[in-house]
């Protein structure tokens, strides 16, 4: 009895979005209590990262009516996390973030089921990611975003007219914060720009010249980078610096301090050392809360259709007053990660040599002297000579065999093409489909052989 009252009051606000029709709803919106139950029953959300944003996201999603949630994070809790990663307590220091975060939210939000994964995102196989309806990202690194983006885009398939097939679109909601600034965005691979289409949005990291660090340090950051980039190698021959090892960090801090004293430079602290070495700007709890709320709302909108989604990039700036803005970025139609590429149909008997010749004649490509790569394997390289030699023997083999007898897959080709009478080098994505290959038999063969 008590249970049901609690349930009702918890979904009261959600019901205003899910039970009533509206004018600004998404295309397939079907309001009603069934929808509320479907969100619990069928929608599985993966939260990537259980740090400042991840903690907020897990709590927000659990309170927004999602029941099946999983979270992946490779980090353990540190004392310095406690000021904003509110799911963690002092006694949790040293424990995996994903596990503690999942447990705390399950304790507080009845009925929600959160499965933690304490590992690297690269450790999970493709079908782990394929299991989720939506992936929500609470990360602080470009590398990790780029990785998840490429995983989500790898599910995307296009039809013969280069239109994305709806059922292969894996939506992502990405949040990011730096101090008082942040962003929230919706990525629908094939429909809105993917992370790689707009990677230029991320400013390159500031890197000081090494000789400045070695000769003429002027700031505390110079002293820290000297200890981190130059002094470390001098003293620890061969041992790699590990930014997540507190003893390594302490060593860099101590050395930076000595250097700062030598040059009379103030301001070296342990937290600045961590910030400079890991390239992080201090996180602000309120920024995380605002950005994650925006991300959770977009997740709900994608899953339920209760409103049109953000299109497609929200920026928030709380440094001076408050400023938010939504920008509709456009896709890079030639994006190597989310773009359709050029469809090429082939007989299974075509050799790699013949394939390269076909690219030269293909009206959409006119690509000469192509080098070919397939899923990290270089099938043929025109240059440098050492690679050409190592891959030359593949030329007489059939492309179908070289690609592991998969009926269709993506390959990448670099070659030269004539643009306005000027030779330019281009890298193209190609969707290769083999004609007359029985998909079922072949799948079995591939699986059996693996």
């Amino acid at each position: 009895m008590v249970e049901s009252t609690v349930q009702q009051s918890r979904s009261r606000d959600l019901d205003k979005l899910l039970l009533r029709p509206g004018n600004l709803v998404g295309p397939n919106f079907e309001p009603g209590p069934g929808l509320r139950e479907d969100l619990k029953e069928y929608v599985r959300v993966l939260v990537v990262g259980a740090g400042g944003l991840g903690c907020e996201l897990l709590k927000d999603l659990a309170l927004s009516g999602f029941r099946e949630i999983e979270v992946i994070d490779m980090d353990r809790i540190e004392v310095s996390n406690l000021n904003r990663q509110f799911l963690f307590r002092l006694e949790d220091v040293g424990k995996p973030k994903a596990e503690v975060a999942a447990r705390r939210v399950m304790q507080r939000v009845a009925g929600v089921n959160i499965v933690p994964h304490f590992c690297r995102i690269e450790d999970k196989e493709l079908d782990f990611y394929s299991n989720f309806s939506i992936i929500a990202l609470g990360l602080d690194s470009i590398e990790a975003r780029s990785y998840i983006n490429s995983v989500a885009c790898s599910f995307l398939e296009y039809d013969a007219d280069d239109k994305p097939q709806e059922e292969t679109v894996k939506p992502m909601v990405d949040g990011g914060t730096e101090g008082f600034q942040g962003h929230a965005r919706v990525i629908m691979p094939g429909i809105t720009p993917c992370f790689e289409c707009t990677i230029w949005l991320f400013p390159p990291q500031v890197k000081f010249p090494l000789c400045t660090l070695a000769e003429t340090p002027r700031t505390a950051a110079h002293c820290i980078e000297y200890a981190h980039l130059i002094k470390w190698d001098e003293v620890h021959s061969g041992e790699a610096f590990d930014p997540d090892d507190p003893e390594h960090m302490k060593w860099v801090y101590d050395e930076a301090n000595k250097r700062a004293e030598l040059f009379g430079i103030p301001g070296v602290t342990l937290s600045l050392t961590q910030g400079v070495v890991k390239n992080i700007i201090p996180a602000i709890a309120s920024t995380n809360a605002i950005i994650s709320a925006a991300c959770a709302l977009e997740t709900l909108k994608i899953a339920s259709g209760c409103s049109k989604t953000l299109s497609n990039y929200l920026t928030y700036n709380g440094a001076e007053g408050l400023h938010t803005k939504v920008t509709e970025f456009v896709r890079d139609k030639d994006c190597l990660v989310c773009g359709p590429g050029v469809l090429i149909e082939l007989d299974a008997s075509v050799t790699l040599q013949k394939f390269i010749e076909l690219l030269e004649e293909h009206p959409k490509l006119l690509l000469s002297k192509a080098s070919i790569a397939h899923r990290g394997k270089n099938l043929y390289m025109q240059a440098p000579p050492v690679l050409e030699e190592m891959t030359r023997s593949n030329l007489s083999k059939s492309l179908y065999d070289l690609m592991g007898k998969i009926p269709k897959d993506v390959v990448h080709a670099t070659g030269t093409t004539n643009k306005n009478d000027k030779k330019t080098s281009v890298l193209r994505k190609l969707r290769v489909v083999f004609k007359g290959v029985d998909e079922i038999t072949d799948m079995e063969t591939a699986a059996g052989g693996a």
Partner: protein
Amino acid sequence: MIRLFKVKEKQKELAEANGGSPLKRQSAGELRLHKDMSELNLPKSCAISFPNGKDDLMNFEVSIKPDEGYYTGGKFLFSFEVSPIYPHDAPKVKCKTKVYHPNIDLEGNVCLNILREDWKPVLNINTIVYGLYHLFTEPNHEDPLNHDAAAVLRDNPKMFESNVRRAMTGGYVGQTLFPRCI
């Protein structure tokens, strides 16, 4: 509402079609590097090698044999480590050959602007190799990483020349022993 059932089934199917094994996907950095490599055009005095074989382009070595200037006849090996988000980030380059050089320290750190403060995504591996080659034909004392070598180059080029020779043929300059690289 997105057609959640359909989505899940189709993607499950796709993952299984790939044999259920974690097929390697190429990072955006690897793809761009594939382009850099296939259009690589090195000076005759430079050679590239791939210690991990043809499918690992992200870790490679370049040897440079300057054919003019103080370092003529020497052979210097550089290791390159390329990030998955290349060209957003510059490759990490280290000199594996211990060298007496104003802009390269004894640990192999290299002071070359395009490797750090002046890196731009339009640059490529070719540009970096030419930049490194340039360091040997025109070492400069204004961006020192080896303070002593820089001071000698500035104040006494004749002595710098003989120090370089001594280092390259395997000998001491000051307290430091250099292995033969000629």
